[in-house]
């Protein structure tokens, strides 16, 4: 029973884990901004951005975000049991 109380200050380890989760949550915000950035480019035919630049930019950003996400998911730990699947109803404890 947790009761209405929450733990206000966490151990160093737990604290770090929470911050990794924060990082994961913030990542899509940055992703959105980065993916919307080409809208502000100069798209004038002939003088503006060439499509090859867009390809390199978008896929580069995409890959960078995936790498960051991989890094974060490597760092995040789930305590066992809070994610384990119980195959049948009878097994839940």
């Amino acid at each position, binding site marked *: 029973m947790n009761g209405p109380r929450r733990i206000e200050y966490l151990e160093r380890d737990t604290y770090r884990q929470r911050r990794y989760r924060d990082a994961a949550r913030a990542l899509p915000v940055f992703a959105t901004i980065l993916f919307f950035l080409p809208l502000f480019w100069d798209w004038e035919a002939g003088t503006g951005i060439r*499509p090859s630049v867009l390809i390199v930019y978008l896929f580069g950003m995409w890959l960078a975000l995936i790498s960051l996400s991989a890094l974060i998911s490597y760092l995040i730990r789930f305590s066992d049991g809070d994610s*384990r699947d119980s195959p049948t109803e009878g097994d839940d404890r």
Partner: protein
Amino acid sequence: MISFNLLIVVSLAYVAFLFLVAFAAERRAKRDRGRWLRNPLVYTLSLSIYCTAWTFYGAVGYAARSGFEYLTIYLGPTIIMIGWWWILRKLVRIGKTQRITSVADLISSRFGKSTVLGVLVTVLAVVGTTPYIALQLQSVTQSLAVFAAEPGSGWDGRDFDSAAVWIAVGLAVFTLIFGTRNLDVNERHHGVVMAVAVEAVVKLFALVAVGVFVVWGMAGGVGEMLDRIDAAVIAEWHPVPHRWVGLIFLSAAAFLTLPRMFQVMVVENSDEKHLVTASWAFPLYVLIMSLFVVPIAVTGLDLLPEGSNPDLFVLTIPLTTGNEGLAILSFLGGFSSATSMVIVATIALATMVSNHIIAPIWLSSTQQGAALSGDVRGVIVLSRRLSIAMILMLGYLYFRLSGGGAALAAIGLISFAGVVQVLPAMIAGIFWRGANRIGAGTGIVIGFAIWAWTLFLPSFGPGAVLSEAVMAEGPFGLAWLRPYALFGITGLDPVIHAVFWSVFFNTVALVMLSVLTFPNPMERLQGAQFVNVFEHSAGARTWSQGAARAEDLLIMAQRIIGHGEAQEMFRQEARAQGIHGYLPEVTPELIGRLERTLAGSVGAATAHAMVGQLTGSAAVSVEDLIAVADETAQIVEYSNQLEAKSAEQERTARALREANEKLTAISIQKDAFLSQISHELRTPMTSIRSFSEILREGEIEPEARSRFAGIIHEEATRLTRLLDDLLDLSYLENGQVQLDVARGSLASVLDRAVMAAGLSAGRLVLNRDSTREAVQIETDLQRLTQVFINLISNAAKYCDAAQPELTIRVLDDGDLCQVDFIDNGTPLDADAQVLIFEKFSRLADESKAGGAGLGLAICRQIMDSLGGEITYLPGQGGPAFRVTLRRAAQLAAQ
């Protein structure tokens, strides 16, 4: 030349391979309970049914027509997956604890196990998904047509329709076999998931193969390819901001709400941790899927004659350049994309249709006792199978009736926009407890209606469903209701226009009605369960006011989940209650658990209704909710009490610890006192003994003798005084003193004390103010005199000033009277101020000391017993003591 027969053989071989994979996976799953199959890679690959034939073939066509806009379809899900998978994690957790079987079940279960909402979402999903299934059938027949068009294929083009039929039938067989093996959706379709994962690899491999061929085989490298892209028509592309933003939102939302995505992401998920891997692996998959799309499109536009269908470039490029092996691989890739999507979407839809439409109808048609009579299990399986067949048939019919072609190609985004109507209810349902059934239902209906009016109906083409007049001028001439320009806003692309208005009004209705209306107790209960799923994953409780017999429940459970499992469950429950056998007491826990178990097979709403039939009343009353709240409150109260008790114990322990420390200190003090006293007694005794010895030996001059006798007498007196003091102190400390209370004036007491102190004249100057000393006191005057004598003689003894002075000051403070003794010697330092009242404490100069250092200790004891006090008064320029007394004035007045 690829003969048609070869193509058929390859396709059949591939299908046979898929069947094998699925069978193997099922067998394996049975043997080791699917542990081997439950890994993050399989999970990630199964998510790839997001990439259907529409993306396999269509992305290239999309790129050829609208440049880089096709990327939005992949960027949306990427944004969700790289960081916001915790939304999915919550869905997965809810799905597990509530045994959710589909999107419709999620919404229905969240909003009070509402049957109506279940039906609503099911209809929405079927309407939104059927065209998509048709699209998959179309893509396969189109790809077959490409091969047929090749000279020498030996195939008659008229057979396309029958090809579509055979594909649909084949898919139906596969889905029937592997999709309905388990009635309990939560038991997972290992065969299907494995087949989907394999197909994911095939389509990725096929697309990458074509891409590599195009970039390195034809263009000659990455640099050359980029140059070609810059030189191509695509270079004139520029992003349309509202489409770019709108489509990213749409694809992200659809990723969460598409029935097939929900199926693989939530229902088939076996471990939440897999989501963490998928968070980067799935975006990587779609990145690779989209990497070669533009190169293929640009190459196709260059290579192939004007007017060729860009949707099929993935096939036609290898065929035109004579790479038949690559063409077949590419065909298999498209085939994989189409089939895996159809299979999973069909299972997802069939579950919904069966649980939310067929089962409730059947249940109400058989009325009371439905769960007890008839083969429920058989009925459910049959309805699931019928639903699968029906949905595939619907897809085929849609394909035939719409006639294929461009109209169908646009259906991808239209379908997305349809299923996205579930999003507000879904997100609000898992994050906002206040969202209720009326709000969610109305929101979905309004969103669905706007979507149908502004996008779905017009998609059949002008004049098909909506007349051209309506399209141009609005219904009944109401221009602000024109399907492509609601409220006269014309600048938006139709898809974005529809998404914007439908989701906007959907959300507004949801929020407004949720705020204004009141949910029923079941909704509130489920709302709390969903939103706070991580706090209590135990599962909701249910209610039973009516008396259901355990035997009836067992009979019903057996009919739905099978004899073995039902009996095992009841036996476990009985054992938990301490009952031997198969029939436990019918408790709310039992009913709740039974309901959840059944929900895995027939959906929450139906399970609730079935159990409700037996338990009599299925409704939750507000009283029930309050009872639960009370129970919770009691637990909280109990825990608070425990906490308080533990705090109290801590306090007691601390008090005990302090007492112990005090005792230890006192014991040390006592030891110090004993050694001190022995020392004090010993010194005079020693001199008495030695002088008496000298006297005994005689032969001493009379003068010396009298001196020695004097010393002996003096020492003996000192001893006596010491012993008197000790005795006195002991009496005082034990409170055994008899007080001789009398009235008198303070002045006379002071006079007596000054005289008794025996001050040698001129040695100590006394400053007194006789007017202020005229205070009547009522106390033991003798004892008080003793205190004053002590203080005066102390001043005389210890004052180190050249001209010692003692000021005796009397202060009248209400019913208290203070007498200060201030001399002009050196003030005591802080440590000494504390120690001075302790026994045997003498300051620095021992030589002057006449007594044993008990004087002030005795004074304090006396003052204590007289009800006054003696304290050291700091900050007076010299040693100062304050004696506080009770005055007699009040007493006299009484």
